[in-house]
């Protein structure tokens, strides 16, 4: 199994380290030619969605990435990655890949003073650590998108077929269960 990690900006190394702990190999996608390599899953990391979205276009990777996701490639987006996948962002008209039937709210907890850590229930896993950094949340899911975790009544993780998103950053804590969950999604595809 080989995972491509979008490495345009943000916390991509942290995802690579989590995968390596699980014994899964990965490579960085920094430009168009990197997409020629075969990969079984894609991770879109935390960072700034505006930066990653813009670079995907300018480095001419946008259409290819959207296409592989539409064709069923398993994809996992954290924080900014969630925003890049959302079909609707309530407080921002800049949409990006727009492949997942969720309505997100950007910077939903405010500025850095609103960033927080908690532990919450994740469907099928149990209680896991959750770190929210200037995080979004999901206001609503549509179609066959499914809620996987809620914190204080706000949706913070969801899945729709091949797409998995979390508003929090599992790559910032020691717990490997969400990455394991994504690997299982790929294996059971």
């Amino acid at each position, binding site marked *: 199994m080989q995972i491509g990690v979008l490495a345009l900006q*943000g*916390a991509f190394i942290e995802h690579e380290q989590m995968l390596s702990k699980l014994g899964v190999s990965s490579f960085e996608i*920094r430009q168009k030619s990197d997409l020629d390599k075969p990969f079984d899953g894609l991770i879109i990391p935390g960072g*700034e969605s*505006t930066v990653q979205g813009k670079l995907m276009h300018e*480095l001419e990777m946008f259409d290819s990435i959207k296409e592989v996701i539409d064709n069923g490639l398993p994809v996992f987006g954290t924080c900014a990655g969630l925003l890049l996948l959302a079909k609707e962002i309530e407080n921002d008209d800049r949409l990006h890949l727009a492949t997942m039937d969720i309505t997100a709210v950007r910077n939903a907890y405010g*500025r850095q003073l609103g960033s927080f850590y908690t532990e919450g229930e994740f469907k099928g896993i149990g209680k896991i650590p959750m770190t929210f950094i200037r995080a979004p949340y999901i206001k609503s899911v549509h179609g066959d998108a499914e809620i996987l975790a809620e914190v204080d009544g706000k949706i913070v993780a969801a899945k729709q077929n091949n797409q998995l998103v979390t508003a929090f950053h599992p790559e910032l804590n020691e717990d490997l269960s969400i990455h394991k969950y994504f690997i299982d999604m790929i294996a059971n595809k």
Partner: protein
Amino acid sequence: MVNDRFELNKNLAQMLKGGVIMDVTTPEQAKIAEAAGACAVMALERIPADIRAAGGVSRMSDPKMIKGIQEAVSIPVMAKCRIGHFAEAQILQAIEIDYIDESEVLSPADDKYHIDKTAFDVPFVCGAKDLGEALRRINEGASMIRTKGEPGTGDVVQAVRHMRMMQAEIRRIGSMSEDELFDAAKELQVPYDLVQYVHENKKLPVVNFAAGGVATPADAALMMQLGAEGVFVGSGIFKSGNPEKRAAAIVKAVTNFTDAKLLAELSEDLGEAMVGINEQEIELLMAERGK
């Protein structure tokens, strides 16, 4: 609880990695920076080149001006306070700034003590010339480090010197035997546990950016190849002929910093770079402020 905030603040710096933080003085410039792909902006009244030209005492920016920039963009907004000026830092925290830069670019308010950054909930980034300075700032609570470089000069030589110095010292600590670390802590004037962290991990305990004198995509690529995890660009963008184009080119250079062919394309037709000042011509060395 203090520890939790420190973790969350280090985490925000991790999200900025691989990105470019740009100095802006107006909401319009902030929007240009965001559209060009900045991962954060530094709100200040005058960019370092103008501070240098104007001389006199340089202070924290007007909170109203900072708020205007916070309203203009959705990316994180940073602002500078003077070294040791904890009241300015309190004000910046009150307007919910995302990151405070306790900066040598402004006139120092205290020639002995830095701010006790552990007393704050918002994160701090501080400049450093070498490993000792970096670890002292981290011990005071900084959750991100940048090279000091020499702000407002468009001359990258000092940023290179500071980054090389830090990396060389990290390699040296990394190769020491355990019993030598105690003396290294004494020599660097920092707590033993921080030296031990560097020894074990071969890196700083927080994210480390390059700053001070970066003016071209090639400068940014140079700093990234020397080990920077991201880049601050101050005067280099809005003191140049075509800020939009230069800003976007530097953003792409940071993402693909080892692809010389792409860097060549990015370096074409950028218009005039900021007029630089060589280090020998500088009267005021900002990097010597706060050690």
